[in-house]
């Protein structure tokens, strides 16, 4: 009886919670904006920080200026191309290696220490080497993107291969499955979730890798644009670029989350949720 009571009460309580969560979120935004405007006002009165914090109106104007400027789209295109090429190349190599490691325990044992060592190192230390090899143009950013994408994808793919529920493989054996069916009907569907998780992380980290490289040495790209504004002390424009990058990253992450929820629809859509915190 008590059980039934809880079940009936649950949806109403859930809706209540949702509303509360929404109110807290809205309040957070309002508070942040108010604090920001307060600091900006102090700045314009020359009490604090000078022009470091421009008013949100100035930033809005700067955003409009950016999205109506032709050279903004050139930089956006450069960053986009660097990101896509880096991500695709890096994760393709990682997928191939991760699957080989899963299928071949000897290979995994041999190279795992190296992957762990390099994987836990900040990839930024390789940046000078990449500049020396690939130059300061678009190629070195693609290389940096690939390097960034590689590690999360290779780890989650290899782990996904190892962690396949062994009883499912025994089921395959008991039905006399051949090698082809074992791969297509058991391994591949079982790998969808870990691989998408890895790709999602890889995509987020590739953005960081590409932007860091652009900030350091570049002749185009959103990171380059950001660095330029910073050096010229055009603070409103700098914030405009930061917000635009933030919005683009959020949209990309949302897309990947959707994909993961779709791939996990058989698990009631709960698979992607717990990870969204970790990757953001």
């Amino acid at each position, binding site marked *: 009886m008590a059980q039934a009571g809880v079940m009936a009460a649950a949806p109403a309580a859930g809706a209540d919670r949702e509303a509360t969560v929404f109110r807290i979120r809205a309040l957070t935004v309002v508070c942040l904006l108010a604090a920001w405007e307060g600091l900006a006002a102090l700045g314009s009165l020359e009490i604090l920080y000078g022009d470091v914090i421009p008013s949100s109106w100035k930033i809005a104007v700067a955003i409009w200026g950016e999205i109506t400027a032709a050279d903004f789209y050139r930089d956006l295109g450069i960053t986009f191309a660097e990101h896509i090429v880096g991500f695709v190349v890096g994760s393709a190599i990682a997928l191939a290696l991760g699957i080989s490691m899963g299928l071949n325990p000897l290979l995994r044992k041999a190279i795992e220490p190296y992957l762990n060592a390099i994987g836990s190192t900040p990839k930024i230390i390789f940046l000078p080497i990449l500049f020396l090899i690939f130059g300061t143009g678009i190629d070195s950013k693609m290389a940096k993107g690939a390097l960034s994408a590689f590690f999360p994808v290779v780890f989650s793919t290899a782990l996904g291969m190892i962690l396949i529920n062994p009883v499912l493989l025994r089921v395959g054996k008991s039905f006399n499955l051949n090698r082809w*069916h074992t791969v297509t009907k058991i391994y591949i569907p079982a790998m969808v979730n870990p691989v998408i998780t890895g790709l999602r992380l890889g995509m987020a980290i590739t953005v960081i890798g590409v932007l860091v490289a652009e900030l350091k040495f570049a002749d185009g790209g959103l990171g380059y644009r950001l660095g330029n504004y910073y050096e010229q002390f055009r603070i409103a424009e700098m914030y405009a670029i930061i917000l635009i990058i933030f919005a683009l990253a959020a949209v990309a992450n949302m897309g990947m989350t959707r994909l993961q929820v779709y791939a996990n629809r058989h698990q009631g859509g709960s698979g992607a949720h717990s990870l969204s915190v970790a990757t953001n």
Partner: protein
Amino acid sequence: MADILEISEVSKTYDLDGENPVQALDRVTLDVAEGEFVSVIGPSGCGKSTLFNIVGGLIAQYEGSVRIDGRAVDGAHRDVGVVFQEESTFPWRTTLDNVAFPLEVQGMGKPERDERARKFVSLVGLEGFENHYPAQLSGGMKQRTAVARTLAYEPRIMLLDEPFGALDEQTRMLLGDKMLEIWAALNQTMLLITHNITEAVQLSDRVVVMSFRPGKIKEVISIDLPRPRSSEVISTPKFGEYVGRLWTLLREEASRGMVEAEAELAAR
């Protein structure tokens, strides 16, 4: 009735490191008739799993002979279907697609295999859940899905490896009734591994009691309870007698197994 399965003088010794050979099975002989329900019961370490793996063709190296329909078993074959103790449904497939799985890999077209699968889904009592994913089902429903999937494979012999071992006692009893219904409807030969004496008596025509290491057949008991049978049979005096007799046989083996397991832990 003709014997579908003939196991004669089967022995199996594992020698993993070349120094400490462990004899898992010692000259096991057992014949199972077509349509018979036979349970194998014994303590952990009595070689039940080894015996199943040999019959299922997963272990090809052994002494003695195993024949199914007169053909020698010495490796992978398709006469045996297994239901595992662990949850073994494919989480990315619906109930219907899980049950249709063996038909799909045999190359049967979708309309035909769906129709066949539907029959087995309703046989295990899961009509209305065809489009549910395993995550939306209870433990007992998942095991019924696994049973239906193995039935759809239409094996000559169905091996049940403690399929309800992870479920609570009441669910297990009711699933036992379901298995009896299915068994009667299909005349399916079934071989069940279990630790559960009540389950063995509730379901079986014969119960094979095995001894602790090396696995030998200690005794075979015919369960002479009326068919069709249901779980209500447990209230009869005769049921209690069988349970008592089996426990007397098993008690000694189980305590030997326990003593040895504890000695192994102490030696570690």
